[in-house]
């Protein structure tokens, strides 16, 4: 066997499952695990440990199921399923994660033996691109709660795992077919039929709906076979693998396969088809959810009317005002009479709709083929309830006066070293402005370091030579007269004439963008804060001489829900009094949660076009947060991961710190030659610019 002895397994399980406190018996689990092959033992123990880091109850649930599951189900499937559960606990808490584990327990059992499954998380990027390629709309993609695939017309819901067919290639093809079927529901009129309330008055609506669905599936299959013959072949294959259609249904398939057939034809067939049993659903059959479609349309209608109300300006009191707040869509016609783009009018004046309104209009037109007039009536003052539909952008500070809201924030992942994968959308990041401070601080700094500023300017000036004339070249736009005179005299003296006779303007221009990330954690209070601010003032003076593009952001965080980046200078902002006042206004805040800051600044840096991109961090210590979790190994691992991501994207990270104990962890974070530890706080202002010069010559 070579596996672990029973005693060792029991000991580990007892520790991870906290038997001391939970008093649960793990002997049964341990015996089952001990009977497995070593690699299977490792797999189960490894996951049990990871899950116990998230919550002991998850680990307990898994350890109990695992031995039985492993005998029946592919490991990759189990991996995907557990990652799903961990995402659920991050997103919605323990109950959701337990629900995932329990739900999957049943559905995993349904899957074919050791099917080569495909997880939605792996295929998501490709499927989403395919969906958008088919539709040309910004469709979304989400895991559905069960085994079904359905859509409200905006978001495609697909099963989190696909293991209905034996091979991975087929399972992926099935995913792709589901995407096409859901797209076809919108494109070929099924969604519109649902939106118009088809079958809603039927005596047994549920049965009628599944009958309509089976008929529409046949019709959409034919539509796809015509539009996308490659996919049509896949669908035919899936059909052949399933049970054959009853004879009556073969007739329906023929009728609905006519290119002129529409959802109306399926509706007309429903009463007749209901008289016999429905055929068993094919692998690629989706579900229809009229209530979701109707809810999405109502949401979009309200959203559209609210946005139009904003476009129309302040609401009128008089009755005729209501008329004035009605928009109209007119088709623009050019001289040749060919119909052009639709234009939005308020009264007689054309209105240029912002992008979100344009998208909403496109969506409504997609549902109804046209925009019904009631959609174009700006929302009136009485429709307050509608306010709730809006996703508004609020002032970050206002949000904070409430409880933990995630509105208007950017979400970033965080690397969880214990689990060995990312926690998705974990950090709730907001950009805020630094409140302006006193300009006297800037003036005093410039006076205090006057000589240094002058020296820095000079040394930075020598770095900036934009274009240099290179002489004695084989090619170039000018004749190098000196070289020519020399060559001619050589020639007349009987020598050989040189060919290096041209001068060329060469661009050795700098093409550098740099982002400074300044530690604004509470520990920088006092001395360090002053030194940081002084260093930034000197740095800006030097960078202005050099002409490099630069941005300055401060970071601070307290728990993952309050990760804050303070704008001091954006890349596109000039170094003016406003920026100076913000530098002066930098004040210590909370803790040093760092990963999100590195990730966000990397994103900003990548938006700037530059040959070299630098990310320079000024800090006074290691990453930490107020709960113990981010402190120590976890925080360092996350920061390291964020820096690795940055480096992979072509950004050069560098760190300047005054933490004298920094040497041991900084080499791991930044690499051996990518950081500087300053012994004295007072040296910071003098050194930062100098270090920058060395980095970029």
């Amino acid at each position, binding site marked *: 066997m070579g596996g672990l002895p029973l005693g060792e397994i029991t000991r580990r399980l007892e520790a991870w499952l906290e038997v001391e406190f939970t008093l649960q018996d793990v002997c049964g689990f341990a015996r089952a695990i001990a009977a497995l092959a070593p690699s299977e033992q490792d797999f189960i123990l490894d996951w049990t440990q990871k899950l116990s880091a998230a919550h002991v109850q998850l680990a307990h649930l898994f350890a109990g199921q695992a031995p039985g599951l492993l005998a029946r189900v592919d490991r990759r499937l189990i991996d995907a399923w557990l990652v799903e559960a961990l995402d659920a606990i991050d997103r919605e808490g323990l109950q959701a994660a337990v629900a995932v584990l329990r739900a999957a327990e049943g559905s995993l059992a349904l899957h074919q033996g050791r099917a080569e499954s495909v997880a939605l998380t792996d295929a998501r990027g490709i499927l989403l691109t395919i969906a958008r390629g*088919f539709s040309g709309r910004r469709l979304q993609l989400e895991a559905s709660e069960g085994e079904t695939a359905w859509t409200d017309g905006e978001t495609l819901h697909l099963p989190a795992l696909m293991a209905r067919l034996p091979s991975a290639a087929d399972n992926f093809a099935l995913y792709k077919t589901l995407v096409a079927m859901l797209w076809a529901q919108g494109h070929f009129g099924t969604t519109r039929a649902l939106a118009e309330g088809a079958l809603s008055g039927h005596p047994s609506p549920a049965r009628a709906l599944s009958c309509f669905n089976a008929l529409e599936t046949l019709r959409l299959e034919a539509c796809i076979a015509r539009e996308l013959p490659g996919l049509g072949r896949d669908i035919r294959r899936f059909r052949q693998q399933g049970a054959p259609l009853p004879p009556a249904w073969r007739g329906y398939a023929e009728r609905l396969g006519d290119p002129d057939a529409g959802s109306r034809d399926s509706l007309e067939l429903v009463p007749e088809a209901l008289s016999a049993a429905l055929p068993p659903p094919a692998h690629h059959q989706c579900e229809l959810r009229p209530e979701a479609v109707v809810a999405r349309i109502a949401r979009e209608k309200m959203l559209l009317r609210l946005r139009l109300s904003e476009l129309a300006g302040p609401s009128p009191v008089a009755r005729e005002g209501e008329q004035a707040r009605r928009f109209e869509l007119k088709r623009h016609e050019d001289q040749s009479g060919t119909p052009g783009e639709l234009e939005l009018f308020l009264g007689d004046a054309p209105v240029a709709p912002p992008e979100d309104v344009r998208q909403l209009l496109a969506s409504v037109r997609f549902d109804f083929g046209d925009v019904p007039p009631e959609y174009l009536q700006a929302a009136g003052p009485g429709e307050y309830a509608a306010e709730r539909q809006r996703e508004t952008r609020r002032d970050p500070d206002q949000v904070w006066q409430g409880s933990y809201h995630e509105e208007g924030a950017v979400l970033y992942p965080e690397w969880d070293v214990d689990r060995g994968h990312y926690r998705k959308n974990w950090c709730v990041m907001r950009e805020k402005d630094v409140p302006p401070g006193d300009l006297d601080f800037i003036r005093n700094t410039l006076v205090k370091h006057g000589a240094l500023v002058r020296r820095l300017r000079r040394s930075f000036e020598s770095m900036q030579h934009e274009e240099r004339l290179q002489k004695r070249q084989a090619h170039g736009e000018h004749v190098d007269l000196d070289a020519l005179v020399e060559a001619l005299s050589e020639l007349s003296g009987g020598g050989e004439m040189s060919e290096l006779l041209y001068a060329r303007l060469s661009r050795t221009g700098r093409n550098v963008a740099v982002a400074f990330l300044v530690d604004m954690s509470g520990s920088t209070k006092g001395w360090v804060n002053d030194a940081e601010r002084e260093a930034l003032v000197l740095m800006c003076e030097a960078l202005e001489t050099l002409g490099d593009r630069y941005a300055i952001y401060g970071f601070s965080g307290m728990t993952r829900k309050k990760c804050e980046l303070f704008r001091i200078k954006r890349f596109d902002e000039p170094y003016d009094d406003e920026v100076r006042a913000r530098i002066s206004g930098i004040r210590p805040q909370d803790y040093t949660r760092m990963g999100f800051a590195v990730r966000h600044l990397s994103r900003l840096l990548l938006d700037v076009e530059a040959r070299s991109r630098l990310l320079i961090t000024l800090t006074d210590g290691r990453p930490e947060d107020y709960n113990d979790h981010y402190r120590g190994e976890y925080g360092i691992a996350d920061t390291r991961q964020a820096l690795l991501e940055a480096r992979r994207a072509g950004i050069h990270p560098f760190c300047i710190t005054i933490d004298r104990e920094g040497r041991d962890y900084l080499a791991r974070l930044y690499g051996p030659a990518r950081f500087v530890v300053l012994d004295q706080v007072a040296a910071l202002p003098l050194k930062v610019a100098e270090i920058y010069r060395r980095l970029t010559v």
Partner: protein
Amino acid sequence: MPSPDSLVTLAPQRIASEPYYQPTGDEVALFEAAHRHRLPMLLKGPTGCGKTRFVEYMAWRLNRPLVTVACHDDLTASDLVGRYLIVGGQTVWIDGPLAAAVRGGAICYLDEIVEARKDTMVVIHPLADGRRILPIDKRGEVLHAPDDFMLVISYNPGYQSVLKELKQSTRQRFVACEFDYPDAATEAGIVVRESGLAPELAAKLVKFAQMTRNLKGNGLDEGASTRLLVHAGQLIAAGLSPAAACRGAIAQAITDDAETLAAVQELSASLF
């Protein structure tokens, strides 16, 4: 050292036979009117939608020689105007393509003008307004453009970069005309005509192109151009399978990103 004979003077090319061009709007009339009134033209549009072919066609139609310069980020003003070379111990002036076009009353087409270095704008501006002159500083000469000369520039507004914007002072000298991919039927017709592909397959290629254009900004910087469709069509007509042709001529050409590439291939597999 180059001998005098080996120096090729940049003679404007006259287009001998009618290039195939399928008009999609009133661009031909606009170009002719601009030429008649000695106005320069700016062609906007995504890559591979037929801007260069259009200029070739117009040069043929107006019976003017054509000088085409593909601009790149090291193209300087002297590359356009000309320079002294040393031949047998003597300096010899060689006209650049722009000066040659002005002298010859040709149509000068500067393709992707925003790629060129900023100093090129200095020589373009006096040519593009009422003065219609090209000063050659190094020779102390000022060329006056004859009536037949026409300056045409093109650029692709689809680029996101702020560095590749055309300045107002430049763009407001030109008559502008926007190009886009033709509608599906016209585009299929172009593919059939240019590649000899069967109409049915050409229509599928166009449908595939539209799917990739749907992805603009969603993983792709730009969708498949008409030019790529013609390439793919030629490969298919030469006996390659549609899947291989789409992969080689289209998918690999528009992206390097593995995931987007896989998705684009799936889209083409759905069609063929």
